[in-house]
């Protein structure tokens, strides 16, 4: 048995305001070191809330029950300063919109090095060297990109965010819909990159996505969520080929129908009649 990377046990969150809506219901998820886990579901499923709980982040207006241990540390009970240090040393988050992660007023070099310098007490030169190495890992030209501003690398900004994440050598990478805001072709690049950096660094990966096929291409295990609850957990192959829950089956069917993977004779795109000019 390998060392557990994280264990979420019986996590329940209820909003205090309004009607006391339960946004997470007895969620239990775990992973061992180096594993890639996909949290899948539609909006309101609780997948982002679960992922953020691994960072010790919970909605301020929610009552929280249950435990979240990352590398054996109970992150929900850590004081703010200790939590910050724990996160800086062990966990990195890649969010959906790279423009929200990067300060547009600062150059890429500052973005990549400031966390390392603040949290690891690295010299400017050493931080720069590590930033350059991380940029190389994500296929960007360090000399050029380190001197750029965020708007100058618009197409590759999510790569820069991934570089920032791997530069601090985290044990756990959390990617929350990392490719959803991007164009289709860049989406594939980001997913491919994420898969590569996670495998190379040996870091565990939690990938939050609404697309089960995207998750399947990266993850060892899948967790299907709906309306705050875990519907199904299993190896990627199991969940995809032999889904147990009706909801998982419906989700796979909808995904495949829309992605054009299944033939739908009753739709115009599959009509055999010759098209018009």
């Amino acid at each position, binding site marked *: 048995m390998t060392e557990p990377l994280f264990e979420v046990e019986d996590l329940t969150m209820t909003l205090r305001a309004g009607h006391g809506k339960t946004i997470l219901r007895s969620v239990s998820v775990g992973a061992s070191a180096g594993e890639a886990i996909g949290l899948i579901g539609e909006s309101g499923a609780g997948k982002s809330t679960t992922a953020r709980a691994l960072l010790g982040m919970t909605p301020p207006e929610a009552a929280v029950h249950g435990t979240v241990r990352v590398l054996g540390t109970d992150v929900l009970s850590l004081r703010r300063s200790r939590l910050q240090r724990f996160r800086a040393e062990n966990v990195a988050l890649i969010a959906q919109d790279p423009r929200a992660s990067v300060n547009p007023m600062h150059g890429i070099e500052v973005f990549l090095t400031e966390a390392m310098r603040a949290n690891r007490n690295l010299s400017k030169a050493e931080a720069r060297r590590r930033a350059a190495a991380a940029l190389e890992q994500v296929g960007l030209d360090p000399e050029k990109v380190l001197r750029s501003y965020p708007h100058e690398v618009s197409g590759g900004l999510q790569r820069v965010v991934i570089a920032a994440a791997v530069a601090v050598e985290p044990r756990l990478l959390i990617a929350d819909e990392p490719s959803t805001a991007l164009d289709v072709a860049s989406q594939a690049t980001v997913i491919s990159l994420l898969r590569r950096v996670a495998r190379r660094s040996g870091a565990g990966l939690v990938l939050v996505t609404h*697309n089960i096929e995207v998750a399947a291409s990266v993850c060892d295990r899948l967790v299907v969520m709906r309306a705050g609850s875990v519907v199904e957990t299993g190896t990627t192959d199991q969940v995809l080929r032999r889904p147990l829950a009706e909801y998982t089956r419906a989700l796979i069917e909808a995904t495949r129908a829309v*992605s054009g993977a299944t033939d739908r004779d009753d739709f115009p795109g599959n009509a055999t009649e010759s098209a018009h000019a």
Partner: protein
Amino acid sequence: MPELMKVEGLRKTFPLPTPAADGRRSFVAVDGVSFAVARPGRTIAIVGESGSGKSTVARMLTGLERPDSGRIHFEGRPVEPWRRRRADRFEYARRVQMVFQDPYLSLDPRLTPRQCLDEVLRVHGTGSKHVRSDRVAELGESVGLRPELLDSMPRQLSGGERQRVAIARALAVEPSLLILDEAVSALDVSTQWLVLQLINRLRRELDLSYVFVTHDLGVARLMGAHVLVMRRGLVVEEGPSAQVFDNPQHPYTQLLIRSIPGDGWNPDAVHPEEVTQ
């Protein structure tokens, strides 16, 4: 018989707020787009990434943008939907309706679906209050909206329910052509599939034509009998859906198709940098 809609050489440039690096002062959003919807019941999908010009085409078809040059014929007659004359706009709007991407923005937050649909019918002079009320119920039913939802406020409706209202509103005047601009892109996977099935059912029942603008290749493949692939204002490839998707000729189309996450999808096989044409 003339084509339902014929579009020739549509072109649109936008002035740039500041000159580009190479000194250009304007941006060519659409650079000569032509296509035709042969007859009622025919469908076209326009697919492209952000900045390809696809939405600008949709907006010109409904008169929300005025092209620099190019012509639109509707049922054999030249039309200029961007003209502001009320009578012309009214007549055209009766025949060509648009459904927008974001159902949260396109509905008046203060009107219930019943009021919203009734308003459209009243403006277009449909019968007495009694006749309109029957028609509203019929419209709600045809888009699969539960009758009690007709009297809720838009904020109480889910994204899918709102988009059903938006479709019902477009159908209220019995148009022969719908322009759908990313009409399912804001919806969850399973809701997306339900709305696509709805649009397809309405197409068959009402012999409705549509131009479906989308960034999603799977959606384009499914919904368009004829598909146009746009990139940087140009149509790089077009043809019957099966031809474009099963035997793509242009490297850009090939790239986009490899980018669709599907069963056994390999994001490593997607190389945007290799497509330069």
